[in-house]
């Protein structure tokens, strides 16, 4: 039986890019479809704010 990973390698790549845009650029140059996600760590990575947000969860 064919494993899912084998099927993945046989299909065209469709990539979701999190983080640095430059990763998406190098794939786009090879005409790979890339969906960039505008992501940054919560509270810009500020650990004090992240802890406060955790305590104020719904």
């Amino acid at each position, binding site marked *: 039986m064919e494993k899912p990973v084998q099927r993945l390698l046989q299909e065209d790549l469709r990539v979701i890019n999190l983080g640095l845009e430059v990763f998406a650029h190098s794939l786009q140059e090879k005409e790979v479809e890339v969906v960039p996600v505008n992501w*940054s760590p*919560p*509270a*810009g990575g500020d650990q004090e*704010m992240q802890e*406060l*947000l955790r*305590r*104020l*969860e*719904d």
Partner: protein
Amino acid sequence: MSIREANEKALGIINRARPTLIGLDRAGEVLEGLTPKTILHAGPPFPRGWVDMSGPVRGAVIGALLYEGWVSSQEEGEELAASGSINFAPCHHYGAAGPMAGIISPSMPVWIVENKNEGNRTFSTINEGLGRVLRFGAYQEEVIRHLRWIEEGLFPLLQETLEKMGEIDLKEITAQALQMGDECHNRNRAATSLLIRKLAPHIMRVSPGREEGARVLEFMDSNDHFYLNLSMAACKATLDPILGLKECTLVATMARNGTDFGIRVAGLGHRWFTAPAEIIDGLFFPGYSQDDANPDLGDSVISETAGIGGFAMAASPAIVQFVGGSAGEATHYTESMYEITVGESDSYLIPILDFRGTPTGIDVRRVVETGLLPVINTGIAHKKAGIGQIGAGLVRPPLDCFQQALRALVEKYRP
């Protein structure tokens, strides 16, 4: 009540609000506690009074002192203002909202707006028009003369008009204006026109002669921002009932005094969280540049707090010719604000977004989490007293206000 339940309750209060224009009177008659020798200003309090005020606010204070007849020259005005014998306080502490410097003194006529759903009332002055006007810090003789005409010519006629014709539903006007290209902060052309349509026949019926009524209508027609002050009072009437709602993390007030930006959060009551006001990025009138600009100023950001203004820019592509940017960016600004709000208006709908409601209910938690700050479109005052408006543009509040509020919410509710 959980935070989620409190925020849902607040959103319901905002959406059910019925801000309605019920009349006009002098500030000293209707603003509770407004004693003689009190001057109200926009934004959060000035801890050291006159010393902390920027140029345009100082100019507007001098203008108000001249207008009230408490002084007879600029020098006397500066001396009295610095003497400590004038009580300076935020408009928001007296139920009012004032554009730019936001100065209100006891003799000034104010609109009276009532939220019919909650019964609370708010107030704002009559908008003076553009150019050299008190709210931008101008205090020359022509400015004071114009304020006197507002008090002696415009006010009695409009007061009698409203007494005869009855109340005006402001939510209905704002909702219609958003369908007609206004965002009701820096573009009020449609809303002002709709208001004139309602008032015009009644003004002419009460006018002692044709000329007095015609002059009032000409003034309203010459001033596209005539509706702004009514809209601000309506937004404040909509939001004030959530102030003090326990566990609620929504922003109830945003305001600038030209020195500091301040916010108040529903669950934290009347406490202000302030940080230095930002410089506005915008378009300048010929002869002026960013070097001339005063930091962010005015209570008009109550518009964005209530989900219009910068939050409704998708409804107003034409606004970019006044504040800068492109029509596409205007749409993007509105779309991005859904990320920091807990819901949508069920009355203020945006045609180009398939009549989606404007983003409503700014959640302090989402602002801090995303780092996405409310977008505000606003006028720019010259930093020197007495000059006036020099442009308009876009600005964001300082993140620090929201971080301070988040700390206070944890201290109060999740220590």
